[in-house]
């Protein structure tokens, strides 16, 4: 199995959530950018993290990855406090952009293989098993026939799949993706959605930062919306559709009323709802039975 599934690890740690935040703040240079976020993501759940630019969603996931500072609160990943998480390969990261330098040639195989580096000591060469895992990761994202292609010649969507395969190559227990479908053409978006659906079917815990909920319909179990550094919605996709409808009605009526899915804070409720509803990407969400 390419990834450690929820089922596989159920025996010992079924009750340990994949991610647990308790009044956690992340930021830069010791200054918090998110404010006291509290949430729990159980293993095997697929969560979409929404929010306008500057809402703190990237700061949050980058904090989980150790790229932004953990300023306050309690953060546990896979039952281990963030600071004590030595084996970072348990979290797979798919960056937003194709951040790979295109200044030198590198094949799909070479890039995917770098996903395994952190998981073994510097003096150890890849084993036959490691190499097989690389091929398997490429198969999972549908690029097994392009293992020896120069990455720079691939399309944006294909490069995105290479980055997913690179994250999978370390057999992570949690996958964090930053805008996996942004700037990808329709054909590749379908393939990406199929890949994510397959991973979800395997029970991989996924935290997907996205603007394009429509591309992920049917895959996402739960939607968390952030605004101004705080969680402004947390619920199922169908509840989110209701939430959006409520926000629009409130906007039409010129006043806001409380809805049951907001929690954690009250004072910015109406403003934030109106602001976050303005995005053109916040399309309607298909009803999904969880």
């Amino acid at each position: 199995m390419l990834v450690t599934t929820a089922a596989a690890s159920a025996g010992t740690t079924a009750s340990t959530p994949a991610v647990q935040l308790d009044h956690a703040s992340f930021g830069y240079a010791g200054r918090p950018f998110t404010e006291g976020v509290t949430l729990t993501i159980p293993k095997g759940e697929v969560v979409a993290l929404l929010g306008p630019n500057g809402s703190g969603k990237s700061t949050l996931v980058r904090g989980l990855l150790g790229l932004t500072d953990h300023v306050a609160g309690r953060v546990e990943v896979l039952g281990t406090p963030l600071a004590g998480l030595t084996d970072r390969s348990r979290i797979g990261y798919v960056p937003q952009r194709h951040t790979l330098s295109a200044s030198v040639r590198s094949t799909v195989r070479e890039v995917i293989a770098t996903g395994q580096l952190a998981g073994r000591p510097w003096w150890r060469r890849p084993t036959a098993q490691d190499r097989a895992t690389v091929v398997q990761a490429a198969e999972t994202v549908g690029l097994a026939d392009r293992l020896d292609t120069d990455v720079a010649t691939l399309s944006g969507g294909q490069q995105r799949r290479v980055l997913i395969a690179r994250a999978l190559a370390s057999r992570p227990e949690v996958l964090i993706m930053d805008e996996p479908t942004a700037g990808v053409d329709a054909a590749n978006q379908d393939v990406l959605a199929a890949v994510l659906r397959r991973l979800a079917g395997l029970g991989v815990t996924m935290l997907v930062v996205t603007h394009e909920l429509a591309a992920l319909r049917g895959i996402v179990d739960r939607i968390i919306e952030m605004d101004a550094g705080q969680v402004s919605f947390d619920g199922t996709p169908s509840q989110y559709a209701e939430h959006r409808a409520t926000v629009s009605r409130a906007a039409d009526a010129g006043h806001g009323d409380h809805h049951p899915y907001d929690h954690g804070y009250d004072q910015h409720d109406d403003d934030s709802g109106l602001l976050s509803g303005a995005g053109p990407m916040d399309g309607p969400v298909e009803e999904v039975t969880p």
Partner: protein
Amino acid sequence: MPEILSYDFMRLALLAALLVGAVAPLVGIFLVQRRLSLIGDGVGHVALAGVAIGILLDGQPIITALIAAVLAGVAVEVIRARGRTSGDIALAVMFYGGIAAGVVIINRVEGGQSSNLTGYLFGAITTTSPGDLVVFAVLSAVIVAVTVVLRQRLFLAAGDEEYARASGLPVMALNITLSVLTAVTVVVSMRVVGLLLISALMIVPNAAAQQVARSFRSATLWAVLFGVLSSVGGVVISFYADTAAGGTIVLLAIALFLVVAAVGALVAALTARRHRIAERHPHEHGPGCGHEAVPHGDHVDYLHGGHRHAPHGAHYDEHADPTTYSPTDSTTDPTTDTGTSDPADHEQVTR
């Protein structure tokens, strides 16, 4: 025995050239990847200050140059890591301060007509002593060992720093390692091509290698080959043509690059004529995409609506060989062995 090998100093020079030609591109590929092609130049400037101190102390210029270059290399990384906009200016101050101090000190010690200064700036390969060669060989062995063992890690840290950091690799340590490797390469190369020409030997063979290679691994090997060809070839040419060895090596490397680039462009133009791109292609082929996969030489074609589509970069090529299959089997009967394909994919037929 050819005339060139009958002189002791030329045998030493050729060995030194061999070491430098192999080692410089090996480190240079990571500098190219990080878009820091000119950093070797700056470190070379500072190394001159080290040389000057060595001459002033009547000691070993190679050792003091090594110390100065390594310190400069570490400083470069520390300044870059702080990410201030003034970092660029700090680097300039350090580099030009180094070369200016070097020139002033050497001239003060040896007088205005110092041949030593020219030797360090532009190379003086024929003055390589057996002792120098031993030092160069040891340093070269260290460079080769480190770049081979840490190749993948340096590749990742240079190619995608953010991901490397997120996956828990010690990115700062790797960057400093590369900086120190650059410094050591500068010192090994300074007698051969000179401190002002070192960057060329690190970068230009890599520029040529990028024209022919298809993977990072093969690019590295090609760069070493081009580097050795330039350095050893340059020394041989300079012996017979009575030219400056350092400059000849660099000119030969550039000539190699131009020839390789021209041949590459020619080959690309020729293959483009035999190369038909499939029309508007909104479907992504891949294993289990529903279209029959046909192995074709070193790649896989997909039977798609009476055409054979071969993945080529971001598009698909037409690989015509229409007699080997029946045109109906590709679109009307998609294989349904996996859950990967979206039914909508199969409606897209490119004619």
